[in-house]
């Protein structure tokens, strides 16, 4: 049986995400509760979380979450990592025994900074980390970088999302953004690396859908040096954001209009400057258009963006309550943790829901109450 990365596996899914726009950090308890309500949208073959603001003590370090199949590859990878990075701290990620979670890999965490000799004008720290991550994921058999951003981390594995959350003791972490994913793959992903969210630097994506444009997206991204080793849509979407925002300098909203662009006929009605811009974006980045059904939540250290495909073939609901923005596959999953939101709506296809932090600094919620 081929494992994920060697084969493409269509999936159905549940997604849920929360951001506090004031940067108030709160525990992972809520997001677990929200995604758990949508239990039937997953089938126990994949679940995961991304959390931002969880490592304030190492905020300037890249936090590597590593999955190893065995000690040999761990030793080998660590030797490689220490040749490229100054490692400030490394330890096993604390976990809890959960009956249904089996065959977990060795999960390890490193806080690192690239060694200065590898960094120059052509290759900044982010670029260098990205290259290393891609190299490990493509070439190091039995090692997988689950996340590599600053002050954030991905926790994912094979199981129902609420079980994965319990396994990784996420109620003990505090973050200002939490996103989550429950997966319904149509065959066995076979390993933990294939679960979602997929991350790159501080990008993370949870995604519900099957992108019919995957082959076109993949081959376009490959031209810009991305190696799509997992054969998942999520990976492609993450790289697309990375290319558009980090490398090409587009803002998030514009990047969303590349992934889910306006229809040509709607562009015809735009005022000339706008029309020219959208036409150029679509003509140039047409191969990055995400076609087919999807709803995604993009997490970054600065906030979240939720986006639907252009004709809304997957569910996505949004709600606000005070400084909190909630996005989820189902309204029930929001009301489960926020029974009386200020505002609930169903975003239109192709129209991003953007929840950016309003402050630079973050703080903890001392009395963060849930229903």
């Amino acid at each position: 049986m081929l494992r994920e990365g060697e084969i493409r596996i269509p999936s159905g899914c549940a997604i849920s995400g929360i951001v506090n726009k004031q940067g108030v950090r709160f525990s992972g308890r809520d997001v677990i509760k929200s995604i758990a309500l949508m239990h039937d949208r997953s089938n126990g073959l994949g679940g995961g979380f991304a959390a931002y603001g969880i490592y304030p003590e190492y905020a300037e370090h890249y936090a590597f979450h590593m999955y190893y199949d065995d000690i040999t590859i761990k030793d080998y990878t660590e030797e490689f990592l220490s040749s490229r990075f100054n490692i400030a701290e490394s330890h096993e990620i604390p976990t809890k025994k959960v009956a249904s979670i089996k065959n977990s890999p060795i999960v390890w965490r490193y806080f690192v900074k690239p060694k200065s000799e590898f960094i120059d004008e052509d290759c900044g720290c982010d670029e260098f980390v990205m290259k290393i991550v891609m190299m490990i994921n493509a070439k190091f058999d039995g090692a997988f970088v689950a996340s590599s951003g600053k002050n954030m981390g991905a926790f994912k594995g094979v199981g129902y999302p609420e079980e994965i959350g319990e396994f990784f003791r996420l109620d003990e972490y505090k973050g200002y953004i939490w996103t989550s994913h429950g997966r319904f793959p149509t065959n066995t992903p076979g390993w933990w690396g294939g679960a979602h969210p997929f991350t790159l630097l501080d990008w993370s994506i949870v995604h519900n859908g099957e992108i019919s444009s995957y082959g076109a997206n993949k081959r376009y991204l490959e031209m810009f040096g991305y190696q799509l080793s997992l054969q998942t849509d999520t990976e492609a979407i993450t790289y697309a954001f990375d290319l558009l925002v980090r490398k090409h300098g587009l803002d998030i909203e514009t990047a969303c209009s590349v992934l889910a662009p306006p229809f040509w006929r709607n562009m015809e009605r735009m005022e000339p400057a706008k029309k020219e811009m959208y036409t150029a974006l679509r003509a140039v980045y047409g191969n990055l258009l995400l076609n087919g059904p999807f709803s995604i939540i993009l997490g970054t250290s600065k906030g979240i963006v939720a986006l639907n495909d252009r004709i809304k073939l997957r569910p996505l609901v949004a709600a606000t309550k005070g400084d909190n923005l909630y996005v989820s596959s189902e309204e029930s999953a929001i009301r489960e943790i926020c029974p009386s939101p200020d505002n609930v709506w169903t975003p239109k296809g192709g129209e991003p829901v953007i929840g950016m932090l309003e402050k630079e600094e973050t703080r903890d919620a001392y009395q963060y109450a849930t229903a």
Partner: protein
Amino acid sequence: MPISMQLPDYLVDRDPNRCITCKVCVNQCANDVHHWDKDVDSVIAEEEKCVNCHRCVIYCPTHALKIRRNPTEYKENHYWNSSTIRGIDRQAEGGGVLLTGMGTDKPIPIYWDRLFLNASQVTNPSIDPLREPMEIRTYLGSKPDNVIIKDGKLIKELPPQLVLDAPIMFGALSFGAISLSAVKSLAKAATDCGVMWNTGEGGLHRDVYEYGKNCIVQVASGRFGVDAEYLNAGSAIEIKIGQGAKPGIGGHLPGEKVGEEVSKTRMIPVGSDAISPAPHHDIYSIEDLRQLIYALKEATRYTKPVSVKVSAVHNVAAIASGIVRAGADIVAIDGVRGGTGAAPLRTRDSVGIPAELALAAVDSRLRQEGIRNQASLVIAGGIRNSSDIVKAIALGADACYIGTAALITMGCRMCQTCYTGKCNWGICTQDPKLVKRLNPEIGAQRLTNLIHAWSHEIKELLGGMGINALESLRGNRLMLRGVGLSETEYRILGILPAGE
């Protein structure tokens, strides 16, 4: 005179019970097959002249006519078969190069038919084009690596682009090779459909300048009809290096076809042979091509994309890469099945490679080199229907040229005797009595119908795959699976076998 060894290729079956001796067949056959014989009070046929163009069959008001292949058998021989023997007979009697028209009719493997498209089932929904928007608009031209935007405005304009409402263009068919009626049909249909037509190397007749917005003007080795006004009259310029039907050789329009109108349009004297040299004599290498590309861009002030069309030959991937690096905005690849008004038979049937393999190789190569976005890729040479187009786009093409299919739409019956100048359908001829048989209004309407029909079919196929924008199919080889190909062919096509 020694007796001819050539047997008539066809027999004319005339049903005496249906023939009303109206003589429509007599007045319509430019090959003088049908004659009225008043001695016997009936129409008789000189069958050796028949080319099976169906003009008489379709015009006969009582369906009294059928054309059959001559049933006379040659001694059975798999190797020395009848077409081989007939070719030798023709040369033994004529002493010339065997000429033919249209694309090759040899049983070259048809990769299109070995490729199968995907459709959505359960895990994602197919999309109904009758209910949902389905977009097949296409931009041809060089695309930068990235778009720079500041304060919601585009900072740097895109290089010039061709906008197509469907990924279909009419391939190069020159005035001279085809009639002005055919040119007008193509020009009008392209304009009505929002696609492009191509002058070939025939220049731009005054009557079709009005269709310049939807025209690609070609610059070929003979430079016929090329001047500044011509270059600026179209929306794009195409440098023709080669064509699929006859890679490596030039063109020859005999003087008898160069009448007043062709003469004016091609800017050559009436009655003179129009000879396109095999190479451009100012392009003996890739750096020369760059000079011509930029000369044309200068001449049109960088407002028009420049295309370079080459035959699909063995080294096509490297050649295409060089063309892109030389500054072309569009690369057109013409496969071995490409059509022609006249080509040496042996060249047509044995030089060049199939478009499918060439396309896959070129697209892969340009992506490997990271320059695929710098030029659009147009594929030509035997595109028969909308699913060929969809498969071509999945393999990596931006758009397709159709030539033969367009000719058939205008009435061509593929009799392959274009080079005789006696096209009974008024398409491939300059004889005024034949030219007027093609009514450009009807020709344009039929072509428009075809483009619309194919557009609908492309949308249906896209919707089935769960795709609602053509750019999501471009180069999306996961949408293809192959059947019955060799490992090498799978590798070159970059697709998986069905079942995997």
